[in-house]
C-alpha cells in the first residue's frame, strides 16, 4: 500500500506544474456557465405559462448549474485518458509490466492527486462564483441526504475514471483514440446533464436515459443534493450507479488483460 502513497505524492508534485493551466481552465469554464444561467433567466422572464419549468424555479435552475460546476470539478477526468493512451502508444507501460505495481491502481492514484490539485486551484474562482450566486445557493434537505450525495459523488468520480480508462485502453488496438474520446465526451455532455437538467426532457426519454451510465456521471448526485430524487427512486438510482461502476471496472480489467496480449511494446 505504501508505494501507492508515494504515487499520490509524486502525482501531486507533477500536477502542481500545471496549476496556472488549471486556474485558467476553471476561470474560462465559468464564463459560458454564467451565460447559460443568464439565458435561462431570459427564458423564465419571458414565460407566461408560470414561474416554474418542470419544478425548477429560476433559483432552482441556477443552483443546478452551480452544483454541476462543483461536482464536475471534483470528478471530471481532464487529462488522464490522453496520458494513458500516450503511455500505451509510446511504450511507457513496459516498466509497469516489469515492476510489482498495478497500472490501474497507479492511474487511479494519479487521477486522485490530479483532482486534489484541480480543486485547490479552482477553489478561488468557483468560490467567487458561488458567492456571486449565493442567493440561489440552496442547502441540501437534510444531513442524511448530504451524506448520500457525498457517497454518490465518490461513485461518480470512480465511474468517470473507469469509463475513461476503458476508453483509453483502445490505444492497444487503434493508433488514434482522441476521436473516440471526443465522441463519448459529447454524449456525456448532453446525456450526463451538463448542458441542462435531464428532468426537463420528455418523460419517455428520461426513462431510457435512466438505464444508461450517463446520468450517473453527473446528473444523479446533483439531483440527490437538490432533493429531486428521494425514497425508493434514490435507492434504485444508487443501485444502478453501483451497477455501472462495477460493470466498467470489469470492462477495464478485461480490456487490460486482452490488450496486454495484443501489445507489441513499441519503443521499449
Amino acid at each position, binding site marked *: 500500500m505504501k508505494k501507492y502513497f508515494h504515487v499520490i505524492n509524486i502525482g501531486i508534485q507533477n500536477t502542481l506544474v*500545471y496549476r*496556472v*493551466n*488549471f*486556474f*485558467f*481552465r476553471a*476561470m*474560462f*469554464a465559468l*464564463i*459560458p456557465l*454564467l*451565460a447559460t444561467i*443568464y*439565458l435561462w*433567466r*431570459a*427564458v423564465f*422572464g*419571458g*414565460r407566461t405559462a408560470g414561474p416554474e*419549468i*418542470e419544478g425548477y424555479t429560476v433559483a432552482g435552475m441556477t443552483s443546478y448549474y452551480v452544483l454541476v460546476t462543483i461536482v464536475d470539478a471534483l470528478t471530471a477526468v481532464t487529462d488522464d485518458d490522453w496520458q494513458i493512451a500516450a503511455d500505451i502508444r509510446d511504450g511507457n507501460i513496459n516498466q509497469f509490466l516489469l515492476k510489482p505495481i498495478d497500472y490501474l491502481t497507479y492511474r487511479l492514484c494519479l487521477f486522485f492527486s490530479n483532482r486534489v490539485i484541480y480543486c485547490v486551484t479552482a477553489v478561488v474562482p468557483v468560490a467567487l462564483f458561488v458567492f456571486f450566486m449565493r442567493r440561489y445557493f440552496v442547502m441540501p434537505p437534510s444531513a442524511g441526504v448530504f451524506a448520500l450525495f457525498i457517497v454518490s459523488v465518490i461513485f461518480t468520480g470512480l465511474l468517470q475514471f473507469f469509463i475513461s480508462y476503458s476508453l483509453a485502453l483502445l490505444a492497444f488496438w487503434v493508433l*488514434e483514440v482522441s*476521436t*473516440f474520446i*471526443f*465522441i463519448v465526451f*459529447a*454524449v456525456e*455532455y*448532453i446525456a450526463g446533464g451538463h*448542458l*441542462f437538467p435531464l428532468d*426537463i*426532457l*420528455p418523460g419517455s426519454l428520461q426513462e431510457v436515459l435512466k438505464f444508461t451510465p450517463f446520468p450517473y456521471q453527473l446528473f444523479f448526485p446533483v439531483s440527490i443534493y437538490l432533493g429531486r430524487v428521494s425514497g425508493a427512486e434514490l435507492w434504485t438510482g444508487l443501485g444502478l450507479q453501483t451497477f455501472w461502476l462495477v460493470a466498467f471496472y470489469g470492462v477495464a480489467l478485461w480490456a487490460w488483460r486482452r490488450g496486454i496480449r495484443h501489445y507489441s511494446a513499441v519503443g521499449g
Partner: protein
Amino acid sequence: MKVPQISNAPNPATVTGWRRYLTIYAALWKNSIVREMGFKANFLLWVVVELLWFALQLGFIAVIYQHTDRIATWSKWEVILLVGASHLIQQLFTAIFLTNITQLSENIRTGKLDFMLLFPVNTRFLISFRQVDLGGFVNAGTSIFVMLYAGRHLGLHPTALQLIGFSALVLCSVLIHYSLMLALASTSFWTVRAQGIVWGYYNLFNLARMPDAAFHGFFRGFFTFAIPMLLVANVPTKVLARKLESPFEIGLLLLMGAICFVASELFWRFALRRYTSASS
C-alpha cells in the same frame, strides 16, 4: 544558356507582393490536402465529432424552446439561424487558423520558431497559414445547410445585398476570432505553456451562439466592447433575419474587427521581441 522551365506554376522567388504569397499559400494548401488524405478514416471521424457537437447545440435549443416561445426577442428558428451562423464562423476559423495557432506555443517551446523566422516570408503569415484543416470546410457546409433550413421556416428571402453583407461580416468575425486567439497564443513567449489559455478561448465560442438580447449590464457590455463575442455571430444573423435595431451595429462589428486586428499585430510584434529561442 536558357534554363529549362520545369513547371507552369510561377516560381515564388520571382513573383513579388501579394501574388507571391498567394503562390505560397496554394502550395501550403496542396501539402495539407496530401497530409489529410493520408489519414482518411481519422478525417471522417473528426467530421463526425464536429457534427455531433453541432447537433448537441441544436438539441439544447430544441429543449429550451419546449418550455418557452421566446428568449427575449428571439424566436426558435431565429436562434437556430444564429447557432448555424456561429458554427459557420467557428468552422471557417478552425479550417484556416486553429491548428496553426495552437501549434505556436509548441513551436516556441521547442525552438522550431527559429526556422520560421529564417524563411524569407512574413513570419506571421507563416505561423497563421501553414496548415489547412479541410474538415472545417465540410462542417461549415453542414452549418449552411442548417441555416437554409431555418431560413425557410422563417420565410426569409434575403436580397443579394443582404447575402453580400452577411458574407462580409462573417469574414470580419473570423478575423476577430483569429486576432484575439493569436494575441492569446502570443503570451506563450512569456509563459511557455499557453495551451490552457488557448483552450479557454475555445470556451468563449459558446457565448457567440447565444442571442444577445438575453444579456444585460456589465456582462453584455464586456462581451460587446471588450471581447466582442456577442457581436460576431449575432450581427450577421440579424442582417439576414432583418432584426437589426440600427445600422450602427454593423459599424460596431467592423470597427471591433479593425481594432482587434491592429491590436493583435502590435502585440505580436511586441511579443516576438521577447523570443530567445529554446536550445543551442
